[in-house]
């Protein structure tokens, strides 16, 4: 069963076509990767799914319901969460507060509850705080709970972004180059985290990544974009040997040499 169906989406920025007729299905509970050279349109693809951009044409459906016309916050409430290629944490807020913001869609309190500090509001907060703490523990970030997010190391910031995204309890999580800037040890740790994410958080994963070792190791399905178009898709083995992919990455003529 597929959780997300993208049909023929196209995105044009003036004369530039960033995505052209891209179609893909994401199986529920799977890990899917989107790869492609720089400027291929991967981030644009993510931005369309999350409502940052509206596609010029085409349709995006989450569990059968179209996401077209929704704002990013509405898409988030439908159950899609994401991280960003250039980290976007709430820098001046503490680590745990970052995760707590991720939990907001799940908090039901209103202005009255806040003013009167009603027992339900208090309990809800406490539960959220405990859950946020458990998420931090899962990502080995618990010792830094009261640190400002901007003071974390680069790798830790990437992990915090994932923790924050998971805090929204998404059905589908989009990770935009989660391993970028990480050292090999951190990348190994991250690989394990993403691999287990499906079971532990009951979430389907769609990720963009340039680290081919990571991609090949964890993805069940890979989609390759080049110049905004889908040039190939399949399992890691199929992608590794696909001549079109090799050409896109290494330039024309490379197929013969390899």
């Amino acid at each position, binding site marked *: 069963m597929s959780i997300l169906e993208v049909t023929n989406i196209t995105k044009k920025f003036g004369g530039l076509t960033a995505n052209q007729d891209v179609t893909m299905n994401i199986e529920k509970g799977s890990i899917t990767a989107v790869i492609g050279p720089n400027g291929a349109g991967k981030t644009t693809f993510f931005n369309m799914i999350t409502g940052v951009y509206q596609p010029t044409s085409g349709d995006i459906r989450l569990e059968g319901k179209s996401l077209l016309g929704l704002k990013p916050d509405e898409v*988030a409430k439908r159950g899609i969460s994401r991280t960003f290629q250039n980290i976007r944490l*709430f820098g001046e807020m503490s680590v745990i507060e970052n995760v707590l*913001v991720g939990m*907001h869609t799940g908090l039901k*309190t209103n202005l009255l509850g*806040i003013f009167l500090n009603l027992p339900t509001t208090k309990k*809800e907060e406490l*539960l959220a705080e*405990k859950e946020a703490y*458990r998420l931090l523990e899962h990502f080995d970030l618990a010792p830094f709970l009261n640190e400002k997010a901007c003071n974390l190391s680069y790798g830790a910031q990437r992990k915090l972004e994932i923790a924050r995204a998971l805090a929204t309890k998404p059905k589908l999580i989009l990770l935009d180059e989660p391993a970028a800037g990480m050292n090999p040890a951190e990348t190994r740790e991250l690989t394990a985290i993403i691999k287990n994410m499906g079971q532990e958080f009951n979430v389907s994963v769609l990720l963009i990544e340039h680290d081919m070792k990571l991609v090949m190791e964890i993805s069940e399905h890979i989609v390759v974009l080049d110049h905004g178009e889908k040039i190939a898709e399949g399992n890691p083995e199929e992608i590794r040997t696909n001549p079109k992919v090799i050409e896109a990455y290494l330039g024309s003529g490379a197929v013969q040499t390899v």
Partner: protein
Amino acid sequence: MKETLAKFLQYKWSQVILFTVFVAVSSAALFFSQKSVTAFLLLLSSLLILHYIKLKNVTKWIIALGLLFILIPFASSGGPAFQSYMDVATMVGIYVSMALGLNIVVGMAGLLDLGFVAFFAVGAYSYSIFATPQAANFMPFGTYPLGGESFWIFLIIGGVVAAIAGVLIGIPVLRVKGDYLAIVTLGFGEIIRILFNNADKPVNITGGAMGIASVTPPEIFGIPLIFPNQFYFVTLVILLFTIFTVLRLERSKLGRSWKAVRENEIAAQAMGIPLVKTKLLAFALGASFSGMMGVVFAAKQAFIDPTSFTLLESFTILVMVVLGGMGSVPGVILGAAVITILNLQVLTELATWVNQLSFGGVISIPEALSPAKMQKFIFGALLVAFALYRPKGLIPAKNKIFDEKKLKESSTHKDFKTTDQKKIQS
């Protein structure tokens, strides 16, 4: 010697003793000297010292309440300057409350608003119009002026009307960001003032440039409130309500949403925070505190006109927030107090002193250089100095510290957790 002193000051009890002595001396000085601005300021500054003492928050609040409700009014009542002290203290309260409102918008939500005084004006006019015969000019029913008891209802009405104004201004204004937002809010602030300035024709609603005079004084249990020492208590109660609410908001889901929007709009939105709604709430709630105090201001002055609500006022409130520490509640309280006292006491005192000197022929300073007219210069200098040396303000904003131990203890009582969840869902 220095070390022993430093060590001595570490202890809670030595701090408490010194604090008591300080309070006792300054209040006695204030009470017995006929008129001593220094003693008055020292007594007020004891509240700041209290902020830093190592005591439990509850204890600090109780002491602060005692100082504010009993000691300060009592100690100032010794001399002929009683009412003028109380007047200054009332103005401090009014400005602190407004600055706390602006702090929600600028400090927490990160929306630079240069027209904030508009909401103060909306509150002030809403009471003034109905507490004078002015309302009879356009209201088809009812008899005006309304009685002084209506003041208490107008506190709420003023807040609500200001909040509505906040939303109405916010809807068009929040389409733009950053510098543009600052300029557009500045424009709207001026528009509202000019509106009040011109709404005397064809129907005389606001009294135009003449303003509205003889605003009915508030009444409680049949006693009209006219004197500054009476308004002091009214302001104090509203101020405490404001502080209480602002602290609640800051630590709530909403406060976190505001900060998230300030830190990174795109990420906040991706976490499911609706941008427009969150920003409008900041505008509305911030404005409501300002509107409430507008009502108090109108009643206290018994006269208002558009000149009380100029751009300089908006800047003044902004300076309070920036100087105190954007996003920091104690900082903003301090900033507002410092600026108000500087404006109303220090500069005016200096001006009279300089005047006396020039009358005596000791020095001659041209009228244009009188300290009372240096306000803008001083604000400018302060802003530059703070931007350079203390960009986070007098008391920088702090994040809430979460207690790791409390979060660690996983819910051992299973039933506790399940009942919780049930309750929240219902």
